[in-house]
C-alpha cells in the first residue's frame, strides 16, 4: 500500500500537533510546579502549625478513637472502642472535662498499619483532637508513633505489650512485660514448674516476650524445651501439638493471637494434653476469647492479666454493671477494655490537674495521678508514662469466667526496659 492514503497523511499532521501540545503542557506543568513549591516554602511553617494544633475553642473538645472496626483485628478492637465510649459518656454525664463536653471521633484502622498512620494524621490535622485513644497491635502502635511525635499530640494505648518503648507522646495504660510476663513466670516458678515450652504467633510481641522468658529461665534454673511460631491467622496446629507433647514440658507459655488460639486449644485437647498434666499460661486470652474458643477446651488453663471481670472491688462492680447495661448482658469485660476505660479517666485527671488540654502541660501534670480503676488503684509513672499495675494469674472456669488464683499483692512499678532486673541486662 502506498503511504499516500488519507489515513497516513493526517497521521503526520496529528503527530505534529501532539508534539506542540505536549511541549506546552510540560512547560506549563514545570512552571506551575515550581511556583507552587516556592509559594509553599514561605507559608508552610505557619499554616501547618496552625493545622496541627488541637481545637479547644468551643464548649466541646474532640478526642480521637482509633481502633480497627473492620479486618482481622476488629474482633478485639471493637470491644475497646465500646468501653472508651462508655467512659466518655460517663464523664460527659458528670459534667465533662474542664467544663467542656467530650466529643469522640471514631476512626477505623481497618487492621492495616498504614491505615492507622493515615487515620491518626486525619484525627490530628483535620479533626484537631486534643488526645487520641486506641490501637491494639504493636505494629499499629509503631505505625502511628511517629505521627503523634511529629505532631506533638497524645495517644493513650490500652493494651499489654512487649515493652522496650517510651514515646514522649504515648501513655501506656496496659501492662508492660514486668507487670504481666515476669509475674507469670514467677508464678510458674513458685508452682514448681521446671521446664516450659513456648508457643506464639509470629510477630513482635511473642518474639520479644519469648526473648525475655528465655533470659528469665536461664537465670532461674528453668529449661525452655522448645519455641514455635505460627504465622498470624494460622489454624493448623497438629504438628505443634505433637512437638509440645513430645517435649514433656511442665508447662506451656502461650503468646498466640486470635484465631490461632482456637485451633491450638482444640488440637491440644485432642492430643490428650490437659490443664493438669501440662498447664498453658496464655497472655492473649481474655474473657471475650474464652467465649469464642469454648470452655470445653479451656477449662482449668491459666491466663496472666491485670484485670478480670471477676476482679473484686466496688469500682469493678460498677464498671461491669454499666458495660453490660449499655452493650448487653452476655458481653464480658476484659483487661484491654478495662485499661481503655481507665485511660480516659486518667487523661481527664491529668487535664484537670494541668488545667489545660495542651499536651505538654498534660504530660507535665501526669506524674502521680491516681485513679480507682476497676482493676484497683492505678498510679501514673510520669517518667515512663506507663502506670503501676497489679499482676494477676487467673484460672479459666467451666462457666467461661476467669477466677483469680494469684496476684502480685501490690501494684508493680512499670519498667519497660527491665532495667531493674539483672538477668535482663543483655536484652536490649
Amino acid at each position, binding site marked *: *500500500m*502506498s*503511504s499516500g492514503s488519507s*489515513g*497516513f497523511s493526517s497521521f503526520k499532521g496529528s503527530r505534529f500537533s501532539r508534539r506542540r501540545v505536549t511541549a506546552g503542557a510540560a512547560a506549563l506543568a514545570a512552571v506551575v510546579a515550581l511556583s507552587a513549591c516556592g509559594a509553599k516554602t514561605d507559608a508552610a511553617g505557619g499554616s501547618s502549625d496552625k493545622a496541627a494544633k488541637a481545637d479547644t475553642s468551643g464548649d466541646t473538645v474532640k478526642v480521637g478513637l482509633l481502633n480497627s472496626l473492620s479486618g482481622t483485628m476488629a474482633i478485639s478492637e471493637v470491644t475497646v472502642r465500646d468501653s472508651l465510649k462508655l467512659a466518655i459518656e460517663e464523664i460527659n454525664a458528670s459534667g465533662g472535662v474542664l467544663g467542656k463536653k467530650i466529643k469522640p471521633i471514631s476512626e477505623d484502622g481497618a487492621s492495616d498499619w498504614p491505615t492507622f498512620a493515615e487515620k491518626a494524621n486525619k484525627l490530628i490535622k483535620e479533626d484537631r483532637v486534643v488526645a487520641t485513644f486506641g490501637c491494639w497491635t504493636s505494629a499499629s502502635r509503631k505505625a502511628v508513633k511517629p505521627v503523634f511525635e511529629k505532631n506533638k499530640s497524645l495517644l493513650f494505648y490500652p493494651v499489654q505489650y512487649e515493652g522496650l518503648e517510651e514515646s514522649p507522646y504515648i501513655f501506656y495504660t496496659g501492662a508492660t512485660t514486668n507487670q504481666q510476663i515476669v509475674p507469670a513466670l514467677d508464678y510458674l516458678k513458685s508452682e514448681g514448674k521446671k521446664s516450659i515450652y513456648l508457643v506464639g504467633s509470629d510477630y513482635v510481641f511473642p518474639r520479644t516476650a519469648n526473648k525475655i522468658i528465655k533470659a528469665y529461665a536461664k537465670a532461674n534454673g528453668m529449661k525452655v524445651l522448645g519455641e514455635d511460631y505460627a504465622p498470624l491467622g494460622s489454624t493448623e496446629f497438629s504438628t505443634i501439638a505433637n512437638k509440645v507433647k513430645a517435649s514433656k514440658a511442665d508447662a506451656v507459655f502461650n503468646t498466640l493471637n486470635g484465631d490461632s488460639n482456637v485451633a491450638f486449644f482444640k488440637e491440644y485437647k485432642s492430643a490428650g494434653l490437659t490443664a493438669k498434666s501440662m498447664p498453658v499460661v496464655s497472655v492473649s486470652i481474655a474473657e471475650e476469647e474464652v467465649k469464642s474458643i469454648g470452655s470445653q477446651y479451656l477449662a482449668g488453663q491459666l491466663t496472666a492479666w491485670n484485670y478480670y471481670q471477676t476482679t473484686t472491688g466496688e469500682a469493678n462492680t460498677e464498671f461491669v454493671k454499666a458495660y453490660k447495661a449499655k452493650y448487653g448482658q452476655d458481653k464480658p469485660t476484659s483487661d484491654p477494655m478495662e485499661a481503655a476505660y481507665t485511660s480516659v479517666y486518667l487523661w481527664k485527671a491529668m487535664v484537670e490537674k494541668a488545667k489545660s488540654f495542651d499536651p505538654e502541660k498534660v504530660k507535665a501534670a501526669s506524674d502521680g495521678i491516681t485513679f480507682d480503676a476497676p482493676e484497683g488503684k492505678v498510679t501514673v509513672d510520669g517518667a515512663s508514662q506507663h502506670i503501676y499495675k497489679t499482676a494477676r494469674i487467673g484460672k479459666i472456669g467451666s462457666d467461661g469466667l476467669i477466677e483469680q488464683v494469684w496476684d502480685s499483692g501490690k501494684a508493680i512499678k512499670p519498667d519497660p526496659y527491665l532495667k531493674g532486673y539483672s538477668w535482663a541486662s543483655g536484652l536490649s
Partner: protein
Amino acid sequence: MSELSGLEIRQLRVSFDGFTAVDGVDLDVRPGDLRFLIGPNGAGKTTLVDAVTGLVKAEGSVLFGGDELLGRSVHNIARSGIGRTFQTATVFEELTVLQNLDIAAGAGRGMLTMLRRRKGVPESVGRALETVGLAELADSPAGTLAHGQKQWLEIGMLLVQDVRLLLLDEPVAGMSHDERQATGELLERISEDRTVVVIEHDMDFMRSFARSVSVLHAGKVLSEGTVTEVQADPKVQAVYLGHAAVQDAELILAEPEA
C-alpha cells in the same frame, strides 16, 4: 524469496495415551507443489500438520529443505519458514487487519523496532493486502471481518511471514462458491514460489486446484498421486464406502468435519 524447499516425512508416528493418531507416515511434497491431504475424520491429517509444526511430540523424521524439524519448538519451526492455519480461522480479533499482518511480518524484528510505533505500511504487508484483497479493510478490526475474509487474512499473514511452506487446514470451509474460486486461484498463485499443503474435504475444490493428492486413513498414507489416479484407486473407494462408487464417496467427503 529464497529457493523452493520440499517436505520429506519419514516414518512419522504420533500417539496420545496409547492411541496412535499417526502411524508411520511417509510423505514427500516436492518443492512448489500444491498438495491436498484428504481422508475421513480421525485419519490423522490435522495431527500430521501438528507434528510438522511442533505442536505435538512425534517420532520419526521430518525434513524441510534438508533440516530436521522434529524436536524443535513451535516458534523455532515457524521461523525456519513454515506457516499454518487452523480449522477455525484464528486471527487477532481485537487488532486491525493491518496490525495482524504487521505482527505476522515482524518475527525477526529487533528490540528497538518493536518498542517504536509502526510508521507507515511495510512493503511486504502492503503487497499482501493487495494479494489477499483486503486493502480496503486494512483499518478494520479483524473481529468484524466475514468468515471468508478471516481465512484470507490468515493466508495473508503467512505470506508476510515469508514462509516457504504453507500448511492450510480447511481454508475454504464455510465459503461461498465464488469465494472458493478466488481462494483456489490465490493458492495457485502462491504455489508458484512456495510449497503449499492443504487439508480439505471439499472434493470439487480439490479437483479444481490440486496438483497432487495424498489420502490418509487410520494414521497411514493410503494412496498418493494426481486427482484422477487417487479417485481411481480401489483402496480409496473401499475406505470411503466399502463398495460404492467414488461419486457417493465424494458426497460423504463433502460433509464438513465437526
